[in-house]
């Protein structure tokens, strides 16, 4: 896979006088293995952009091109397959299946893809072990802490070996320490495991883990900033930017 191209992406809800433009001709390029945070005030269209990147929704205008595939040209089955094999999702509320244990949850995408159970579980075990959950494989979600659940969710997102990880407020439901752990983990996914990570967040501290931040306001890109970490004050910088564009 290569870059992700977003060209003149527009999403409108409703019609006529009640139409709401959630995204307004957005153009974005995301490079391979880049860790990008999308920020902006409530209702700016950041989650909408994420949904469209993941093929969860269809744009009103414009294109999303991932690995040379224009998502608008794909039908529902093809989009489903894309989500299964090329994209991993991390949700704010973890969205683990309550009746499956950690290992089964992590193996779910490739189980759905027809991989044999033993092989699926082996791959999932590998990822869960990397994320420090080797001793939690048979625990159900209600037996795990929030941070542990989100790590299972990230393992699930990676198990199919996708090139793109989309995270929607992955730390929104976690305490500060767990949030930092998860954000750090996502950075490792990008740098160590060479995946492209796009994360929506409203938390400047978490956004500071990213390589670049795209700011949205009223459905438009208003700023893109590369972050430098040398002075360790990336978080303050991001906070300043957030204040500039409103939250």
């Amino acid at each position, binding site marked *: 896979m290569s870059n992700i191209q977003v060209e003149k992406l527009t999403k409108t809800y409703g019609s006529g006088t009640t139409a709401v433009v959630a995204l307004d001709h957005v153009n974005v390029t995301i490079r391979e293995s880049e860790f990008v945070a999308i920020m902006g005030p409530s209702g700016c269209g950041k*989650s909408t952009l994420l*949904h469209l990147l*993941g093929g*969860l*929704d269809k744009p009103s205008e414009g294109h999303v091109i991932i690995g040379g595939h224009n998502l608008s040209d794909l039908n*529902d*089955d093809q989009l*489903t*397959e894309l*989500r*299964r*094999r090329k994209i991993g*999702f991390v*949700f*704010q*509320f973890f*969205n683990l*299946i*309550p*009746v*499956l244990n950690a290992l*089964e949850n992590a193996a*779910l*995408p490739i*189980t*759905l*893809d*027809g*991989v*044999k*159970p033993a092989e699926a579980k082996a791959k999932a075990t590998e990822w869960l072990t990397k994320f420090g959950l080797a001793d939690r494989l048979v625990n159900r979600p209600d037996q795990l802490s929030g941070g542990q659940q989100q790590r299972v969710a990230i393992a*699930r997102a990676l198990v*199919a070996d996708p090139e793109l990880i989309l995270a*929607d407020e992955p730390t929104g439901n976690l305490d500060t320490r767990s949030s930092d752990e998860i954000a750090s983990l996502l950075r490792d996914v990008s740098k160590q495991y060479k995946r492209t990570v796009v994360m929506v967040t409203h938390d400047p501290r978490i956004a500071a883990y990213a390589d670049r931040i795209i700011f949205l306001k009223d459905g438009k890109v208003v700023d893109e900033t590369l972050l430098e970490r040398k002075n360790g004050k990336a978080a303050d910088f991001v906070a300043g930017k957030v204040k500039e564009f409103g939250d």
Partner: protein
Amino acid sequence: MIDVNLQLTLAARYLNGRKLRTFLTTLAVVFGVLVIFGMNIILPTMLAALQANVMGTEGMVDFSITHISSEPFPQSVADKLQGVDGVRVYSPSLTRTINIPADFYDKDANKTDNVTVLSLMGVIPEQARSVRSYTIVEGRYLTADDSASALISRTLADAIKVNVGDTFRIPSVDGTTELTIVGILPAQIFGGNETVMVNLPEAQIITNEPGKVNVIDINTETTALEERRAEVTKNIETALGNDYQVGTLLTGSEMFASLRLGQAMFSVFGVMALFMGGFIIFNTFRTIVAERRRDIGMLRALGANRRTIIGMILAEGFLQGILGTCIGLTLGYLMAAGIINFIGPFMSSFINLNMGAPVVSPLLLIGSIFLGVGVTVVAGLIPALSASKVTPLEALRPSAAETQFNQRTGFGFAGGVVIIVLTVIAILTGQPALIIPGGFLFLLGLVLLAPTLVRPVALVFGRVIGSLYARQGIGELAQGNVTRQPSRVAVTASTSMLALAVIVAMGGMVSSLTGVLFDLVRFNLGSDYLFVPPSIALWGSNVATTPEFANQLKAVDGVEAVSTLRYSSAISNGQAISLLGIDPVSYPAVSGFYFQDSLYADDDAAYASLTEGRNMLVNGSLMATLGKQVGDTIEIVTPDGTLQYRIVAMGTDMLNAKVTTGFISQTNLQNDFGVTDDVFIQLNLKKNADRAAADKTIRALAEKYPTFKVVIGTEYYESLNSQMNAAFSGMYALFLLLALPSLIAMLNTLTISVIERTREIGMIRAAGGTRKQIRTMIVAEALLLAAIGTAFGILGGLYLGYVIVVAMKGIFPLGYVFPTNGILAGILIGLLFGVFAALIPARQAARMNVVEALRYE
């Protein structure tokens, strides 16, 4: 395959994760299967007992020939087989089932009778031995010179404690006949009719069938070729003519038609129960899908396709179907065994039928499994399809309990209105063919209208509930909770409606039936004395008596009138019917026919018409079976040819209501069927008679005819009454059983409703609502649910009650009675069930931890 594994794993885990809901839903399947399976065991068991009781013996012969009327025919017919190509040997015989009166052998009322029925076989000894081998374990075989001699089985000999050289008696037309045992046959492996083999002339005397036989056993040349066998069969049929058939005797088969009708009714009952179960499952699955929208959305986001989602929901249905079906089959068998055990004494005393172990046909077993699993999976299909339409975005939205505020007046509503209108028109036509299916369609129409009617009906009843609970502050809340989910409430109300409609209708039917039945019993069987054979209605299995007994009774000082019934079986239009000969003068004096339709203005004229030509009174069962009307002519096949009889009136009598029966004069019965012997006698004394003296004389005379049990009319009436009351109690229990799904449905709905509103209940408690208020709110909702279901049920029951009257018209004279009792029973059961259904969910809701409830997702 892997996909299926995942679906089954998820299904099993979800089922295990919500044990109470799984239990409630599975219970619905259990109940449906239990009723279908259990109910359809009872009648085949009765049929099997009937066949074992009345069918003639079969042996290792190639063919058995009988007359199509099952009546005896001239012995000379057998001679026609002489020289028929392919026939090697033949043996004519007169075989009759003889019911043995109670305590006939042991004379001890405290002991259970070992022998209740015998099979008398009159043979020409050498011819009989040429077609079948008889092993003699003691004594010798019969010879042609033997008279008053018999061969009996070892089992019979042991049962009545006799041996070679001893004498024993059997009932006969002259009272009793004594036979000397010359030989013992091997013990019978299977229970049932014990054989008593005598010379043919002896059997003809015992049964008063001079020169007659009723079976010819034939052995043909040995051949395995199907074609040659068919050729020989044709040769036999050509030699004997169309009035003879290859087959066995089927005495009592006139009852089979009624039993088959009963079987059909039970099947309908069972299907209704399963249908209701399907409703409950549908309701549950809809809720499951609503609850799991986020999980389903997440699965779709991860790449599960629609097929996988559908499969996941259906897998749950499949697993529940399997579990529920297995439990239902087990409980159904136990229920059937229990019912058979309960009605056994009734069957034994009334028609001398010994019910054996429950009979389960492989087809019933497979059918029940197919229905149980199939209904569950089909009930989950629409919710599964709905689940597959959940988009991945649902995974990212917060969940909320579904509410529907818009009035639902779509296709279902229109369909429901059309159906209701058509069914009302059907009633106005007066056509049973339209009214009967209309009853069920009316219920379907109500089901389709239910979602639309829920809100306005809830508003009406809600005001009552609201005012009742106004001081607790939860009246409006309860009403609102019910009306915000009209679809779910409609499904619950529909389940209750089906059950309560049946209760209302059946309650009305039972009320009018009991009135009619008890009147009929008094009318038909209210004579001073009755002389009752071992089996009533299955007259052919009893030994009759010569008219001498009745003549002796008529001569007793103080006797005013004696009426007898005489019996012959016949075939009309391929159907077995029962013909009873009556004396048109004495019969109405002592008993009587309950006329429903007649060519004559008064009953006396109808009776008198029996003496003119070939006229017949028939009961509703015969009319329905042959599809005839009063005034029509029917053809009856007799051993002497086909005769035409005209139906002059239709009605019923208590004894033969369930059996296809025609009443003709005893003169015609003698002339056309050669029957002169009595199977049932009734007697009235004069008003001023010396009852004690008459009783003494009557009983002394009756001792010579032990086939008949002497019963005082009033005692018989009391005994029948208590048996009927017991039977009706059983019916009430059945109705209550049918109402159980409505209880399950309400319990299900309320439980799910509580689970769905956990956060809301937590909020009410956080805002200061007490546990008692929460409990009361749930109970109020339950009463509202019950009221809605009951209201629909009463509507449905009124129509269904009318349908039953129309359907029964052909069998029993039921006038339409407004089912007040049924309605009251329906209201009581509906509301009581509502309260019961609320108990567990109300307790659950009241006991919720507030903080956990507020955090619930």
